[in-house]
C-alpha cells in the first residue's frame, strides 16, 4: 500500500514539475546553472573512471584471450562494445546516481527543512517546476555528452594499454575497434542514458522534495535517492535492452 502511495506522490510531483515556467529568462539561467553543476562538474569523475576502466578491461580481455586460435583483434572489439553497450551508459549512470543523485536530494532536502521551498511557494512560485525541471533538462542534455566522452576515453584507455604494454599489438587493437561495428549500439547507449538521466534527477528530487525533519532525514533521503535510482536504472536497463536489442 505504501509503495502505491509513493508512486502516486511521485507522479503528482512530476505533474507539478512539467508546468509553464514563470519567467523563461530566469528558467533558462537556472538550466545553465544546473548544466554546470550536474554535467560539467561530473566530467572529471566520468573521465577518470572511463580511462581506467577502458584500460583494465583491455588488459583483462587480453589476459583471457591467450589461446592462439582466438584472433587478437577481438580484444579491441570487446573493449569497444563493452564501453558502448554497458559501461558508458549503465555503469556511468550508477556512478552518477551516487554523485548527482545524492547532491540533488540533499540540496532540495535542505531547502525543504530550512523552509526555503515554503518561501518559494509563498512568493507564488511553483517550487517543483522552479527547482526540479531545470535539473531534469540539464541532465537530459549533458548525460549523452558524458556518454560519448566516456566511450571515447574508455577506448583511449585501451589504446594506452596497447601502446605501453605488450599484451596486445596497437594494430590488432585498432583493427578490432573498426571490426563489425554496429552504429545502432551507440543509439541504444544514448537512448539508455537519456532515460537514466530522467530517473536519477526525478527520483532524487522526489526524495529531497518530500524530506521532513532535520539533518538526519536529509541524509536518509539522500541514501534513498541513490538506492532507488540504482534499482530503477538496473530495471530499466533490462527493459530497454529487451526492447531495443532483441
Amino acid at each position: 500500500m505504501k509503495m502505491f502511495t509513493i508512486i502516486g506522490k511521485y507522479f503528482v510531483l512530476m505533474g507539478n514539475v512539467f508546468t509553464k515556467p514563470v519567467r523563461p529568462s530566469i528558467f533558462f539561467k537556472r538550466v545553465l546553472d544546473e548544466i554546470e553543476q550536474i554535467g560539467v562538474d561530473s566530467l572529471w569523475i566520468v573521465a577518470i573512471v572511463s580511462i581506467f576502466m577502458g584500460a583494465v578491461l583491455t588488459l583483462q580481455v587480453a589476459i583471457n584471450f591467450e589461446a592462439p586460435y582466438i584472433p587478437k583483434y577481438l580484444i579491441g572489439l570487446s573493449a569497444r562494445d563493452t564501453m558502448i553497450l554497458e559501461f558508458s551508459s549503465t555503469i556511468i549512470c550508477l556512478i552518477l546516481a551516487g554523485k548527482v543523485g545524492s547532491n540533488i536530494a540533499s540540496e532540495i532536502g535542505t531547502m525543504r527543512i530550512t523552509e526555503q521551498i515554503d518561501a518559494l511557494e509563498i512568493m507564488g512560485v511553483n517550487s517543483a517546476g522552479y527547482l526540479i525541471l531545470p535539473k531534469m533538462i540539464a541532465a537530459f542534455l549533458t548525460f549523452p555528452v558524458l556518454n560519448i566522452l566516456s566511450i571515447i576515453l574508455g577506448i583511449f584507455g585501451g589504446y594506452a594499454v596497447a601502446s605501453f604494454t605488450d599484451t596486445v599489438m596497437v594494430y590488432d587493437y585498432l583493427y578490432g575497434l573498426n571490426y563489425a561495428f554496429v552504429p545502432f549500439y551507440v543509439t541504444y547507449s544514448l537512448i539508455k542514458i537519456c532515460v537514466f538521466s530522467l530517473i536519477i534527477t526525478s527520483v532524487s528530487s522526489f526524495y529531497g522534495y518530500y524530506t521532513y525533519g532535520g539533518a538526519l532525514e536529509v541524509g536518509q533521503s539522500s541514501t534513498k535517492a541513490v538506492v532507488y535510482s540504482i534499482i530503477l536504472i538496473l530495471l530499466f536497463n533490462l527493459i530497454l535492452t529487451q526492447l531495443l536489442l532483441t
Partner: protein
Amino acid sequence: MIEVKNISKSFNNNHVLKNVSADFVPGKISMVIGKSGSGKTVLLKSVIGLHTPDEGEIFFDKREFTKANMKFKRQIRQEIGMVFQGGALFTSSNIEDNIRFPLDLFTNMTKTEKKKRVDFCLERVNMEDSNKLFPAEISGGMQKRVSIARAIVLNPKYLFCDEPNSGLDPQTAILIDRLIKEITAEYNTTTIVNTHDMNSVIEIADNIYFIHEGQKWWEGGRDDIFYSDNKELNDFVFASDLYKKIKALAK
C-alpha cells in the same frame, strides 16, 4: 483584511485546529500566541495555504482562498510577504539576489530600478552595504532583517511573521519588533505575527489571539491581557515572576 471562518485541521485524527475564526485588519498587528504545539503555526500555514484546512473558509479582501485553484492562490501569494522563523533565505545566493528574486520573477523593472529598490529595502532594515554578503556570513538577527527586506520588496498587502524573534537577543528582538510595527504602519499591511515572546506582545501587538489546544481561547487588545481572568491565558502569559509582578502592578 483577512477573514478566517471556522477553520479546522487535523493530521492522522489528531485535531490540531478546531473551529478557529478571526478577522485580521489592515494597518494593525495581530499576534497569535500560544504554547508550543497549540496549533498556532498550523493556523498561520493554513491561512497562507501551505496546509489545506479540513473545514472552514479564508478570505483575502473578500477573495475566497481556501477552495481557489493553484493559479489564483499563486496570484494572491504575490501580495503576501512572509518572514520565516529561520529566515528561509536562499543560501546559494547573496543578500542582493535574495531580495531581488521576487522582483525578477514578478516585475518588469529595469536592472537599475531593481537595484534601487533592493538598496531601499536594505536601507529600510538598516542593512545597507551588505548586498554582496551571503546568508552564512551574517548573524541570525541580520538574517531576520534581510528576510523582512525580502518580504517587503513587492510592497505586500499582507505580512506574515512566524516567530520573528526566536533565537535573538533582547535588543535585536526589539529592533525587529519596531521594524514590523513601522512597516505595518507605513504600508498599511495586514500583519499577522506568531510568537512566544511576551515582550513583543506588550511592545507592538494591536490584537491578540490566544490559541489553546487548537481553539481560539481568548481574543483582545494589548491592555486587556492584564485584566483578563482567563486562567489558561494567565498561566501562559504570566508564567514568569517578572510578568506576575507586572500584572499585579497593572491591577
